[in-house]
């Protein structure tokens, strides 16, 4: 009893102090917390995210910070584990007392952190893909990347444009692939596309010819869509060419990095996928509002790290920028005001597209944010 009373008092004192500190001086840092999967199986997503957050926090501070306040970044690496993501989120909220959290590299880590930020009432901008993060809307949770549902929609639209109605689906046995599969099934029904095959493969499989042979022998299939991340889709692509399947091959936005083309080599030629403007930065028409942003981001990133920019890096950039933009508009870091300001983000042009959020939409991207790209001569080109 006594202890509880004491801790309540401590909490009250802490809160008051926090509130006082929050409104005290203009030079107080803006505390941005981040949980990313910089190591572990999702490191190819989390590592660029971490680099970008650190790079841009530095750059902003050198340019004098935001509204005269420096950005203080605290990054934790959850190694791709949901339980670690949860405990780091707790630490960010309770001991680091951050104003806003960017991160949650994967859907799993994001969903582990979500209930904690809801309870702790801290604005949280996720960098993960699945639609479940923002549907149904959670008061304090936002996200920057496109959803798997949008990817499915974009692919189906392209199919329709080409007059194809029968799709074979190959999805990965992973969180991303499973969610993608569900969304594909739902979207196909809405758009009148018939799914004639529904195959899966393991994330670490080295041979998918058995599944693809079934599709090859299915006379109804008119196109194939692969939903996966990492090396799996590259294996599928190689096996696809090996079996000489001549149907159009689609991939999801999960492979929108040069790594995919490098791994699949010549087999990737002619593959189509929905991707953010970032991967085709220099090919965007000058009239595209995104052009300036993505070209600039690509330049900064590639100069700093001497590796090719990835869309995942872009998600982190967007997350940080949306948060800091909201700090400016909210006139400080009061969490409730900051949350409202993030929700009111309007016409922010980032690497993922133009973001206009609302109380009902905590991602704010439309289908226009996706470009259908095709692999030609080992590079992405805008598909017609």
């Amino acid at each position: 009893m006594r202890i509880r009373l004491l801790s309540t008092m401590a909490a009250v004192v802490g809160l008051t102090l926090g509130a006082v500190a929050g409104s005290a001086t203009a030079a107080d840092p803006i505390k941005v917390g981040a949980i990313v999967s910089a190591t572990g199986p999702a490191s190819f997503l989390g590592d660029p995210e971490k680099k970008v957050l650190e790079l841009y926090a530095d750059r902003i501070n050198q340019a004098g910070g935001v509204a005269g306040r420096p950005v203080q970044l605290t990054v934790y690496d959850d190694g791709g584990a949901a339980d670690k993501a949860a405990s780091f989120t707790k630490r960010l909220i309770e001991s680091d007392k951050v104003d806003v959290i960017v991160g949650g590299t994967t859907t799993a880590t994001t969903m582990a952190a979500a209930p904690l930020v809801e309870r702790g009432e801290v604005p949280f901008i996720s960098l993960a893909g699945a639609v479940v993060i923002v549907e149904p809307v959670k008061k304090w949770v936002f996200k920057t990347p496109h959803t798997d549902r949008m990817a499915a929609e974009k692919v189906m639209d392209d199919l329709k444009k080409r007059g194809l109605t029968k799709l074979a689906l190959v999805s990965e046995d992973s969180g991303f692939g499973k969610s993608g599969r569900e969304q594909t099934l739902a979207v196909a029904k809405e758009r009148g596309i018939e799914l004639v095959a529904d195959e899966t493969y393991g994330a670490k499989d080295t041979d998918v010819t058995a599944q693809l042979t079934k599709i090859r022998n299915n006379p109804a299939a008119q196109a194939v869509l692969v939903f996966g991340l990492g090396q799996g889709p590259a294996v599928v692509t190689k096996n696809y060419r090996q079996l000489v399947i001549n149907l159009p091959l689609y991939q999801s936005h999960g492979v929108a990095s040069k790594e995919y083309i490098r791994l699949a080599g010549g087999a990737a030629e002619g593959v189509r996928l929905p991707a953010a403007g970032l991967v085709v930065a220099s090919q965007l028409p000058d009239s595209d509002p995104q052009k300036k942003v993505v070209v600039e981001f690509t330049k900064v990133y590639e100069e700093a790290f001497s590796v090719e920019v990835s869309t995942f890096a872009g998600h982190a950039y967007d997350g940080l920028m949306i948060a800091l933009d909201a700090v400016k508009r909210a006139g400080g870091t009061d969490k409730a005001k900051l949350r409202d300001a993030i929700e009111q983000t309007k016409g922010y042009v980032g690497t993922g597209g133009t973001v206009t959020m609302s109380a009902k939409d905590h991602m704010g991207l439309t289908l226009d944010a996706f470009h259908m790209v095709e692999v030609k001569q080992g590079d992405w080109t805008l598909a017609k």
Partner: protein
Amino acid sequence: MLAELLQYLLSGLTIGAIYALAGLGFSIIYNASHVINFAQGEFIMIGGMASATLTASGVPLPLAILIGCGGAMLVGVAVAKFAVERARKASTVTLIIITIGASIFLRGVAELVWGKDFKRLDAFSGETPIQLFGASLQPQSLWVMGCAGVLIVAIGLFFNKTLTGKAMLATSHNRLAAQLVGIDVKRVVLASFALSAALGAVGGAVVAPITFSYTEMGIMLGLKGFTAAVLGGLGHGPGAVAGGLIVGVAEALGAGYLSSAYKDAVAFVIILAVLLFMPNGLFGKRGTERV
């Protein structure tokens, strides 16, 4: 229908050939030292990673494979000398755990040396598929099966025709007697690790163009190799080869006709069934004498 079956068989035999090499590696070490070496998969990884990274930096492919092979042999000898030999008097379970520890250590070192990303190795002779009765085959599959075949025959000759090979066989039959007739048993153990490492490394190099190489590629390949060795009867060389091919084909057929979701499960169902119903495997009879 037939083309479909043939396609599954070809996929199964390709990956089965690698399982066979890994299984053979398990058997050779088991014979010489009664240790089940769970770092076998890491030898495969070293071969794959070394050949992929070296060719990427301009080393000709055969030389790259040789270097990878040599590197893996050194690592194999080091594992034997510094991890297994030092615990010579420990129980078998302890020794097995030591090799698991060694495999985790090797993966960690590999991650530091080569990084976490996937490496690509070009196919040895192009990627134009070969059509065969309606099934199609990557030229690299022929390389995999061919290399595995040559290595398996070579190992057979080594054990039956050379003095060193015979000494190793003798050690596996009766360690004490072998020691009494003047065979340096410690060196036999070292040689068995080096030999298994070389087999694994070549396997890793030829399979890398199909699977890509990365630091964790050895985990699954090693486990499947172990399944192959157990299925064939631990310590039985030709048995391990047959076991590898059976596991590979069963997997491909399972993925094709049942569901791709159960692909990996097939191998582990096989190992459970073997351990329950015929613990000596398909060919191993000597196992009973040893206990």
